[in-house]
């Protein structure tokens, strides 16, 4: 490839080959170092800590893996989550991530480097981002040349769209999955180019690794068949494609079925049917191709083409029939929400309630990709100009990923690599053109020679061969364009650093604020409360909280939870939602039946922490309403004017809900009478706070962010708790009256006589 690149500084490519390769290695290493370094903001600013929610589960699972070994991990039944159901964790997770860090842990032990598993988990994502940059380099090199490859690697290394999911501590499946995605695609391009079963097999191997690591493997499962399909439609079927696809599909599918969580899905669900269909189609096409070789007749050819289309239509109809009859599982809810963004909100509130499943807002494209987003279409256009088989892949990938990134914020992640690649091709082409120091002397002659050269090199392109070569004559325009792009690139680096530093480097477990003197003040309420639970509650205490905090409680407090971020059982989550949204009488029954010892809620009213449970409350109500429409109604939580209020205008249903009571219990007493203020919702609260009958406040963190309540035991005399509290308050009043005038309590010295 490097021979096609026009050398500007080194006139003789042969003699400078070794210098170039050393330079490439050095540049790639520097890019990898920059990629790792830019992800370390949170470690330097805070500490080596696991971030957010899901990573806490992955971390816990990794700890389990290194402690109990691989086979125990495989058969892990976790009775400390989803109480009382438990979770077959070993069979319902993608083990790739944990196995990777476990393997690293063991490898380091082997060379006598006993690194803590936490540090491996924290630094896994930055480490793999270096590898991703390398994989992007390889991929782009296949598309254009190594110059574009280096640019793409640099873009990939620092693009915020990827950094957002791979900062140190963000120990999630995506941490390794994007590397695997790019590397699998690279291997696929290589296989398709060479028509080599070995590369196809390698591609299948990495596809297997990807399947074991991330649910997003379905993207590969559909994109590669789509690429093949488009190539066939373009009449570019070749033996190379056949060998590459067949070896990839057969090996990759068999390998992917070894992951317990995937199992027979590749032959049973709609998401995987495209790959299977293309596999059948390519066999037909191969057969037709063979026949065409034997019978060179145009009419026969047309007939065969019609036959192929017919068979496609028939098999598609068959697929639809099988899906309707239920032999093949229909699209899952998450996939429906990819086609219809409003679908989840109506049918599956639990999916819609996750912020990363929301449609993407326009500014976030610019925020996450900055200048790459406007270089991206140019890169796609350049791909059209050359349009070799691999360029078709870029185009297909671009179209698909752009759509998905528009539908779901989270899928910005899959768009980022192709944007980096396309933008790198654009910038590289611009530099190729404008960095040519010599101006072309004779346009005709030059273009003729170039044309000849290109015709020789490029087999697949048809537009490119017709395009005349046009050089740049004026030095001013060269300097201008190159200068402008250099400035853009520098600005891009600044933007990436700024975004990474400001938006993506907060662990969210620890909050930072500034003291009046400018020094950093750490708000550590989550860990305070979780650690309290860990140290001062019974080992087998059951904690009920909204599912967002399930993984964190499991990871930090090490206590049994009712629901967690795995969200596999909607009814169970709805039960928790109902307990939170109902009156105390109803809730207490639910709590007792689930043997709940403590209820944990997040309340941001004192500090102005907006991600608290009152703000998430409507989702709890909606999810509960989905299961018990008669008992929980969202409408009742709104004022007659349709407002969601927590102050004195709040509806009775709201005021009597357990969540409201737990959030504001004793809160108004913190302020002078009548001054109680909820800083998140900017509401002035009623002077008298809610009264709890069936729960006791057990712990409240320093800034009141986490509040833990202990569920009262049954009354010793068999009364209900409302009667008890009524009796006690009555008695207290009576006692006060009876003892009026007497000094309360007994004070003074009492002496024991021997």
């Amino acid at each position, binding site marked *: 490839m490097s021979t096609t690149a026009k050398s500007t500084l080194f006139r003789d490519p042969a003699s400078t080959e070794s210098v170039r390769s050393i330079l490439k290695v050095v540049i790639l290493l520097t890019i990898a170092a920059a990629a790792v370094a830019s992800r370390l903001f949170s470690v330097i600013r*805070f*500490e*080596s*800590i696991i971030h957010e929610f899901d990573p806490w589960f992955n971390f816990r699972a990794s700890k389990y893996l290194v402690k109990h070994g691989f086979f125990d991990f495989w058969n892990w039944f976790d009775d400390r989550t989803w109480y009382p159901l438990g979770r077959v964790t070993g069979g319902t997770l993608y083990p790739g991530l944990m196995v990777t860090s476990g393997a690293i842990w063991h490898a380091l032990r082997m*060379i*006598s*480097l*006993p690194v803590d598993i936490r540090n491996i988990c924290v630094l896994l994502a930055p480490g793999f981002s270096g590898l991703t940059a390398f994989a992007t380099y390889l991929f782009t090199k296949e598309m254009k040349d190594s110059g574009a490859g280096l640019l793409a690697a640099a873009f990939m290394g620092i693009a915020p769209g990827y950094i957002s999911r791979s900062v140190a501590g963000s120990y999630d499946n995506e941490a390794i999955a994007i590397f695997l995605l790019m590397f699998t695609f690279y291997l696929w391009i290589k296989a398709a180019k060479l028509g080599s079963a070995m590369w196809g097999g390698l591609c299948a191997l990495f596809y297997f690794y990807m399947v074991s690591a991330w649910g997003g493997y379905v993207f590969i499962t559909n994109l590669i068949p789509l690429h093949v399909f488009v190539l066939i439609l373009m009449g570019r079927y070749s033996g190379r494609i056949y060998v590459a696809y067949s070896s990839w599909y057969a090996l990759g599918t068999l390998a992917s079925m070894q992951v317990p969580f995937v199992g027979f899905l590749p032959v049973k669900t709609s998401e995987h049917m495209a790959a299977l269909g293309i596999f059948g189609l390519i066999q037909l096409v191969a057969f037709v191709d063979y026949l065409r070789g034997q019978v060179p007749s145009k009419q026969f050819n047309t007939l065969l083409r019609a036959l192929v289309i017919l068979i496609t239509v028939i098999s598609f109809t068959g697929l639809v029939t099988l899906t309707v009859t239920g032999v093949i599982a229909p699209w899952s809810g998450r996939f429906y929400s990819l086609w219809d963004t409003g679908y989840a909100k109506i049918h599956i509130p639990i999916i819609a309630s996750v912020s990363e499943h929301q449609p993407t807002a326009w500014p976030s494209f610019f925020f996450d990709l900055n200048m790459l987003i406007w270089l991206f279409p140019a890169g796609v256009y350049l791909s059209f100009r050359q349009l070799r088989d691999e360029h078709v892949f870029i185009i297909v990938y671009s179209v698909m990923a752009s759509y998905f990134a528009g539908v779901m914020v989270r899928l910005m992640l899959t768009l980022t690599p192709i944007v980096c690649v396309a933008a790198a091709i654009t910038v590289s082409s611009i530099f190729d053109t404008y960095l040519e120091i010599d101006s072309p002397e004779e346009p005709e002659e030059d273009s003729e020679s170039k044309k000849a050269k290109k015709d020789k090199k490029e087999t697949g392109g048809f537009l490119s061969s017709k395009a005349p070569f046009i050089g740049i004559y004026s030095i001013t325009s060269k300097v201008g364009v190159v200068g402008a792009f250099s400035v853009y690139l520098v600005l891009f680096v600044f933007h990436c650093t700024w975004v990474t530093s400001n938006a993506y480097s907060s662990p969210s477990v*620890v909050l930072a604020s500034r003291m009046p003197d400018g020094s950093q003040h*750490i708000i*550590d309420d989550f*860990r*305070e409360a*979780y*650690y*309290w639970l*860990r*140290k*001062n509650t019974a080992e087998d205490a059951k904690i009920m909280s909204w599912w967002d905090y399930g993984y964190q409680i499991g990871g*930090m407090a090490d206590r049994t939870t009712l629901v967690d971020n795995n969200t596999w059982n909607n009814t169970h989550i709805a039960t928790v939602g109902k307990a939170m949204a109902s009156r105390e009488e109803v809730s207490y029954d639910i709590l007792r039946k689930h043997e709940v010892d403590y209820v944990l809620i997040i309340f941001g009213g004192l500090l102005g922490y907006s991600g608290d449970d009152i703000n998430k409350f409507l989702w709890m109500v909606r999810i509960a309403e989905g299961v018990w429409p008669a008992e929980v109604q969202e409408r009742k939580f709104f004022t007659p004017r349709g407002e969601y209020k927590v102050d004195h205008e709040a509806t009775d249903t709201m005021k009597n809900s357990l969540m409201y009571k737990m959030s504001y219990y*004793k809160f108004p*007493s*913190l302020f002078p009478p009548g001054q109680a203020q909820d800083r998140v919702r900017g509401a002035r609260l009623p002077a008298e706070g809610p009264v709890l009958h069936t729960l*006791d*406040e*057990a*712990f*409240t*963190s*320093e800034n*009141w962010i986490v509040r833990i309540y*202990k569920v009262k035991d049954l009354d010793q005399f068999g009364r209900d708790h409302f009667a008890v509290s009524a009796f006690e308050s009555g008695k207290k009043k009576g006692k006060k009256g009876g003892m009026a005038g007497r000094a309360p309590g007994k004070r*003074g*010295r*009492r*002496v*024991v*006589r*021997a």
Partner: protein
Amino acid sequence: MRSSNSRVSLLATLLLAASHLGLSLDVPPVYKNTNLLRTIDASKAYVKETIAVIIENISHQPQTEYYLPLLVSGSSAVSYVECKDKKDGTPCTAEAVDDASEYPLQYYKITLPKTLKPSDQITLAVTAGITGALTPVPAVIGQSDKQFLSYTGAKFVPSPYFTEKQKTKFRAANGEIPDYTIHELTEKSGYIVTYGPYDNVEPWKTDAQVDEITVRFEFTNPIVFMEKLERDIEVSHWGNNLAIEERYWMTNNGAKLKEQFSRLSWATTAYYNPPTAAIKSLLFPLRVGSKDAYYTDEVGNVSTSKFRSDSREAILDIKPRFPIFGGWNYSFVVGWNNDLPAYLRHGEGDGYILKVPLLQGPSQSTSYGKVEVRIILPEGATNVKYVSPITIHKEEQFLHKTFMDTIGRTSIKLTIDNVVDELKNRDIIVTYDYSTLAALRKPLVVLGSVFSLYIVTAILGRIDLSIGK
């Protein structure tokens, strides 16, 4: 001394074999206590009992051994006993006698600093730390209530000898003493309750009625109890560094909370900073020159700590994540580094002498259930010997394998049960041999492995694996 441990057990075995398995040890009445003053100091989270006694040899032979039993009833246990000649300060040894008696008396055999001739006198000062002797009464209190502790002990020292005159002084933490047993000659002034002086007290008889004294007094501090402390002292010759890490499992043995914890009242009273029975912070006075202090727990770094180190002092001030009320637990890790030269001397030949504090710890009065000190010496150190300032209950030598080690670092683990902070900041002296070759082991191993890796890669790179040409 390494042998001290085995000597104690040997002695105990011999004594056990020699003495009949009776109710108490049979002590020959060869002394008379001329004057005995006992001070029970309960101002800390444990009891410190000091007995100053003038003894006289009333037998006809010169004597060297004096027996002193301590009353350990219920959950209490003796942490340490130390003794010295009160006049010139000569220390003498006090060793526990395992007499298997049923009555809660723990005998200590004191070897006098000098042989006592007949009718000679000597003044002994015996100090004992007793843990678990203080119980909160009432056992549960409100969050902002005062905490009271109760001490129960014998009115007289259970001495096996005749005592002409004895007096007991009980020193409470402050003047608020709501209850105390009143015998004849009982007097309270300020924070001291005095019993005696009593004349002509007969030797202790096991079956006689015990006159007890009970004092209940206010205790405004938490009762810090470390169930376990693991202390690592790691010597690095290459890094020229002495790294110390301490892992604590802490609990507050004070009165438990009556209700659940109320953040509201905690936050509203925090403004006045009232005395509380909860552990709010711990102050670790470190040796001068300590640096790079850290404070973490099982869920990561704790940001509420301050560390100050200058030429005069080094202080690590830590705040637990939450206030530790009675019965609450908390575990944490603190660590710091020191420059090695201040603690290590090069002896003869390959010999090195290390002198480090065996125990450090918070400045608040603290008792420890179990302390494990691991001294990790460099890889390849041999001939390890130590001299301990306090009795070691269990000793273990092992290899600690960590960063880039091939055989592991020579380490010793010293286990001490039931320690009080009176014993902290005493230096242990460790001597070991460490040759230059052992010091060069690690760089050579790393060099060798990198080089062999290079050779293997070079060879593998030259193998042609392609099928057909």
